[in-house]
């Protein structure tokens, strides 16, 4: 009797979506769900039009407005001429090609990676793509989800497939349980700190271990969201009861018997016992503390009770050079305690940390400071990830907690994570940001970004500096 070779979850997702593998050609995979937005789709639509090609399955594509939009007004013109052109182009394109659009003022509008999961558009066992590198977020459901370029957006439109070479597999196991007050953002930043910002280039990562299994769906999304920040094509977490409970009853999710059958199929997705990975990284959850980045890539991160490193701390010449450049750009001195770094801007939002649990966590911290206001030297904005998140937060009175404490409560969108709208930092600004990239100029030319959890961002807003909330 022969037994089949144990397979990883990635291998199973791959095999179940393989349309064709022909010698000499890159394998062709089926795409179940395609999310689009205004910035990376117009040129793809233009090419379809040029070649007179239809969208093969318009019902498998969903459009939202997120990257460019104003967070002060639902008017399309509110974010400037260039943005308005792209937003109007998206409206026109969706109409012409029969694609459902959640535009400004729509109850489902939101950041693609917040909106998809909350509507049940994101399902385990599927392939999900979007012209945005943070598509890996949806891997939290056990979906193979990754960002694509505009040429690939066009390919998916026309064929509902993509050509993809097989990635290597990496298992990231977080053993045991994290301590009190440690968030999913701290877990993923600690992972990236360990592997370095290119540590998973060429890999699809599967996160596992007790600390990952214990996370809620929203926390799992925060972890998978930042897979690209250490180079991974995608991040995966095996679907379990937490996943099924979250998906059940969502607007676009399967219902009744179809859902029951789906759960049976999804249950079999997890990596088989003994499945081999090309690389394995292990962390002890109890060692993970609250994290703050000090540099200009997400791998340049330390615990909040630590200090800004020195170039001498790095033996690798490239890392040493990167440290020198980062300290210069960030205007930081080696040895400075992280809790002594003063910020003047705080941003709570982005596809990493703008869901209801993130806002609750931030509000909890604000309340812990009992009536204290955002310090005078800081401007702090809160940008919910979607209209649904915003509405729920307002039902729970979170908006009031924030507004009373001196935060600005904005409308949903990508906002200051990438600053394509007017939510931009000035040169020299130093921002505690719950987003995902601390690259040079990311939030505005000459601005300095420190990536943190919503809890840390809230504390920084009230105190004006980073705080070891567990001290």
């Amino acid at each position, binding site marked *: 009797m022969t037994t089949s070779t144990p397979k990883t979850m990635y291998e199973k997702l791959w095999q179940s979506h393989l*349309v064709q593998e022909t010698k000499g*050609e890159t394998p062709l995979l089926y795409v179940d769900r395609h999310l689009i937005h205004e*910035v990376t789709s117009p040129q793809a639509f233009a090419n379809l039009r040029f070649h007179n090609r239809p969208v093969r399955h318009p019902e498998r594509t969903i459009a939202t407005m997120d990257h460019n939009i104003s967070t002060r007004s639902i008017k399309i013109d509110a974010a400037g001429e260039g943005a308005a052109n792209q937003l109007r182009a998206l409206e026109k394109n969706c109409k012409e090609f029969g694609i459902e659009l959640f535009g400004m003022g729509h109850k489902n509008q939101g950041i693609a990676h917040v909106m998809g999961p909350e509507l049940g558009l994101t399902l385990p066992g599927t392939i999900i793509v979007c012209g945005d590198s943070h598509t890996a977020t949806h891997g939290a459901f056990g979906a193979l989800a990754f960002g694509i370029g505009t040429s690939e957006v066009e390919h998916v439109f026309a064929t509902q497939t993509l050509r993809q070479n097989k990635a290597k597999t990496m298992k990231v196991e977080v053993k045991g349980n994290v301590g009190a007050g440690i968030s999913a953002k701290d877990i993923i930043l600690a992972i990236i700190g360990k592997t370095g910002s290119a540590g998973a280039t060429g890999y699809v990562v599967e996160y596992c271990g007790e600390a990952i299994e214990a996370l809620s769906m929203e926390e799992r999304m925060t972890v998978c969201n930042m897979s690209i920040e250490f*180079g991974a094509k995608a991040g995966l977490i095996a679907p379990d009861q937490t996943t099924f409970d979250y998906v059940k009853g969502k607007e676009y999710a399967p219902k009744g018997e179809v859902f029951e059958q789906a759960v049976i199929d999804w249950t079999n997705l997890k990596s088989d016992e003994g499945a081999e990975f090309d690389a394995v990284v292990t962390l002890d959850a109890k060692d993970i503390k609250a994290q703050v980045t000090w540099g200009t890539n997400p791998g340049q991160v330390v615990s909040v009770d630590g200090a800004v490193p020195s170039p001498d701390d790095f033996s690798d010449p490239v890392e040493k050079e990167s440290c020198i450049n980062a300290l210069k750009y960030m205007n930081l001195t080696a040895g400075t305690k992280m809790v002594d770094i003063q910020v003047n801007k705080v941003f709570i939002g982005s596809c990493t940390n703008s869901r209801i649990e993130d806002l609750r966590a931030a509000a909890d911290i604000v309340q812990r400071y009992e009536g204290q206001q955002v310090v005078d030297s800081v401007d702090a904005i809160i940008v919910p990830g979607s209209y649904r998140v915003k509405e729920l937060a307002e039902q729970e009175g979170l908006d009031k907690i924030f507004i009373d404490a001196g935060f600005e409560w904005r409308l949903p969108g990508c906002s200051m994570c990438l600053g394509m709208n007017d939510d931009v930092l000035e040169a020299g600004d130093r921002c505690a940001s719950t987003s995902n990239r601390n690259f040079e*100029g990311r939030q505005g030319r000459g601005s300095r970004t420190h990536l943190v959890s919503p809890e840390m961002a809230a504390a920084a807003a009230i105190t004006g500096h980073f705080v070891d909330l567990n001290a």
Partner: protein
Amino acid sequence: MEKFNTHTGLVAPLDVANVDTDQIIPKQFLQKTERIGFGVHLFHDSRYLDHAGTQENPDFVINKPEYKGASILLAGENFGCGSSREHAPWALQEFGFKVLISSSFADIFYGNCINIGILPIQLTEEEVEQLFKLSTESVLTITVDLPNNTVTCGDLVFKFSLSEFQQYSLENGVDSVGWTLNKLDAIKAFEDKMPAWQ
């Protein structure tokens, strides 16, 4: 897509690791609905001293007179990391780069380059190091031979590889959408077998 066969060109050395696509083309230039108009904004924050982009930074590599007309970019490791924006390769291409050489590229960026006809060449760290060293001594001219997978710089000859289909696509300027549209029978057959929930 234009066919790629061999190319000889001037090499601009950018010896910086982890150059992300935000650096290649900052977000404020992504508000276009066409594929053109990005080259002038390539490496904007490093290339120009002012935000408006009117004053060139004379110290930045592509502004130096000796590298004018460069068509091959020699880059540090993990080039093109971060955002999936295809605007980054569009900007590189419009500026005039046909070939990128590095010891490693970010995955999405690498695929985007091939899809628009830029050749990303991955060499070993030692080989890239050697080229950077030589480029400090003189302005380099390199010949890239795609059918034979070689990079030639003076007496040095390095081999590189691409996946079979990527090589074929670049050499023949394949319209990848058109190519896949010829496989509609296989796609239909796959769709017929999908479970109801999918």
